[in-house]
């Protein structure tokens, strides 16, 4: 990591470092004051990550840092050197959706879609460490992400359905033609 000219307090100070994002190493130069959220959206064009408050209150901006969900609006990008950052853009494999994306789409877990990326990243982290969570564990894991549309129930069902797919108990329905 290197910091460009400018005093410590100067907002002009820029930082150059290498971030590991969605499995790729990215060399990046950014304003040092920027949060991870801002660097993702403004400097890297990863606008799949949303924001609802930029104060750590809504959870919409959740991304995975070293497999753990964190609020990207509360984390400075400079704190992420050497970390593995994963965003919604890295959830699918090419054009094949992650099971949790498939079930969110099929079961009405995304209405306006604004909290969805944060919800998906948090849910995928849960399923990664516990592919068979109870309803209570799902509620607990997702409690930091607010959704104003769904009432959460279809989200819980989608996470449970994705768990069944990840455990090999059911398969992703073959997508209908044209999807």
């Amino acid at each position: 990591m290197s910091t460009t000219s400018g005093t410590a307090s100067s907002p002009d100070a820029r930082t150059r470092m290498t971030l590991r994002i969605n499995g790729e190493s990215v060399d990046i130069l950014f304003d040092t004051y920027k949060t991870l959220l801002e660097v993702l959206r403004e400097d890297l064009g990863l606008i799949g990550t949303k924001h609802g408050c930029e104060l750590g209150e809504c959870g919409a901006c959740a991304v995975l840092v070293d497999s753990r969900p964190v609020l990207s609006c509360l984390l400075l990008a400079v704190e992420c050197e050497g970390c593995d950052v994963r965003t919604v853009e890295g959830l699918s494999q090419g054009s094949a959706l992650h099971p949790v994306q498939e079930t969110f789409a099929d079961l009405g877990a995304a209405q306006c879609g604004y909290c969805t990326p944060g919800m998906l990243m948090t849910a995928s982290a849960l399923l990664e460490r516990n592919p068979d969570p109870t309803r209570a564990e799902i509620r607990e894991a997702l409690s930091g992400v607010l959704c104003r549309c769904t009432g959460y129930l279809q989200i819980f069902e989608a996470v449970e359905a994705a768990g069944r797919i990840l455990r090999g108990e059911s398969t992703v329905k073959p997508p209908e033609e044209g999807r």
Partner: protein
Amino acid sequence: MSPAQRQARFTVVGKPRRRVDARAKVTGQTRFADDLFLPRMLHCKLLRSPHPHARILRIDLRAAADPGVKLLLTGCDMPTPYGILPVSQDEHALCLERVRFVGDPVAAVVAVDEQTASEALDRIRIDYEPLATIASPREALETPEPKIQPYGDGNIHKKVALEFGDVDAAMASAESVFEDVFFYEGNTHLPIEQHAALAAVDPDGKLTVWSATQTPHYVHRALARVLGIPAAHIRVIATPNGGGFGGKSDPFNHEIVVAKAALLLGRPVKICLTREEVFYCHRGRHPVLMKLRTGVQADGRIVAMDLQTLLDGGAYGSYGVASTFYTGALQTVTYEVPRYRFRGCRAFTNKPPCGPKRGHGTPQPRFAQEVQLDKIAVALEKDPAELRKMQIAKPNSLTANFMRIGTIGLGECIDRVVEGSGWKDRRGKLPFGQGLGLACSSYLCGAGLPIYWNALPHSGVQLQLDRSGRVTAFCGATEIGQGSDDVLANLVAEVLGIDPFDLRLVTGDTDLGPVDLGSYSSRVTLMMGHAAIQAAERARDLIASAVSRRLGIPLERVVFAQRRVFDAEDPDKGVPFAEAVQIGEAQHGTLGTTGSYRPPESEAKYKGGGVGPSPAYSYSACVAEVRVHPETGWVEVERIWIAHDIGRALNPVLARGQVEGSVYMALGEALLEEMAYRRLPKHLSGALVHKYPSLLEYKSPTTLEMPDVVTYLVEQPDGAGPFGAKEVGQGPLLPVMPALANAVYDAVGIRVDEVPITPEKVLRAMADRKSRRFGPSDFPRIDWPEALRVAPPAEGGDGTAANEKPRRRKDDAIVAPDVAPTGLPPHPSTPEARRGVPSSSPASQPPEVLR
């Protein structure tokens, strides 16, 4: 064709499906307004008032200058007033000479980035002269001066009074009369997406504005008005909204400011409001104080209802005149109310303006009536479910206030939740601390009248088909998460026998699609739906006639299904859909059709009868089960059973989501959420400030608070709806709050006649051994105007008021011209104002602006 026959042949409608825009949403690729970036784009920030009410004496912009700052704007740069209702054009893009609430925008900075703009805001100096503030409607009634708005009567924005039949006589003949006072606190939409807008000047000099708006058509009109450029040179694109709930239905300051800035600078300008600013935009649920008197027969049948409402409107008109009428208009649609008097009053206060939130003006009086019915049931020792069932409004009838009702599935709704919850065996029989409560409601499926009077369709759909088999549907309707795009694709695909995913949709764009009035009043499924079906049937007929001729199939036997067009009696005789389009194109030329919809004329001819009529009404019933902790007052919701009369569910996955989302939002209102304000102490300016303009402090339910919900979709197709469909986005919210209040009574024997039902209120009611109640004690005396007297249909009325002066017929105009509200003084820059036209408000002089 009978509904049953239609249902038999449905291939898309009614099937649980992935919504057409799901993939974009789960991959994060939906482009919300703040996700748009254009080359050379600049960023805008607004400076907002720290005073709840003050004159602006001087604006000193000099210190804000900076190489990174490209433009500074103040009110005098956009002096034309605007507002959502033609009768309340009382807003300015930036305040002219006065601020009216903490958060009213005064100046704008456009800079190379948000950081530079924010820093420049801090360097703007504004001198204010604070004015006395009005904190509540009671204060507004008692304090006519200083006037917050130059129009209205003192600080009273609007008073309405309507009477349908002789209510006093009916009350006198009633076996008993129940009288209660209720209060419903204000709350806000809290969409997770903050409002954002981007404006750019196109290469040909025209203006494009992308915005997170539910009503691009109304934003379009406001922009044309304030910017003074032809509407045809302005394009508004409603980006998919990250939640709306009514909060993005007004034209907003920031939309006009970025448009003006883009025009002046010739560069794209974007703004994204902070979460705190979203709280200041508000336009949420009005706090309403209500006095409800209901006369009943010995068996509990209603003979008359007398309702008074007092609304806290905040500082501007917004939808307030409509909101005021809505606190009364739908009270007659759920149960039979033979005689009805409604008087409503909206006051101005120095708080962010209230407007339409999911249920617009209806949840408050519904809470009052449903809680009172529970009290009546207890007093008459009747089952609250039976008391309601025996007096449900009649299908295919006209209410006392001339609302035309079609189908009513409420009886079945009540049966379903009663059965599901074990109501008959469990209500009144659970251990102390546990209880069940029931409530019902109805809601409109689209306002019968547009916001500005016009003779045009409320929704239009255009289809374009080509030889590849492509079908593109164009419509101004706005996707706010409710699934309007899916409804459009669903209905067109159903008629043309293709898959919804085959369609290409162009929506929410005023340049490319026919006008749809917007995503409000639960109107889109019904109105856009009819337009879509009409356009699709016209396309189908064109193709069918050509295919019939070409393949020698009798026209009446041509069927569209499974992406084929074929002979119903010989399915092998047919062609793929794309080939059928080619045959159609060969015969008719380029294929394109349109469809449009305008609601039927209302039978409510009296003044004020424009609010409430709808092509159809949906019905809901809810049972709530709660556990009340007597030591803490905490109300835990164990389970909700809710049945909604949807007419027909076009996509049950989405319909269920709307019901559960409504229940969720209702629970937030019922138990947690409030837009509350407090006065700071004198030494801290004495300002009237929002108690908690943050998501952390404004408590909304998380995954941990959301109870299980059992949803029943009751399908009794209504002839007025597309394939029989009615609304589902707002109605299911309405019965939840009163069901909870009634469940709290069943659990611990107390009445909380207020929303939200907080632990503190529960404890205070439990501590009051005498009344066992918490709630407002009185309704202030209001000097009501003489009520317009309208005889109900059953008493020979024709929908007009006996004591109303004949009104000017608007029918001659195609589009009514905008009218300024009466009493608004001339704009400060006009010669009349400079000559000093008398005004009861403090001197209106434009502030000095130093650049």
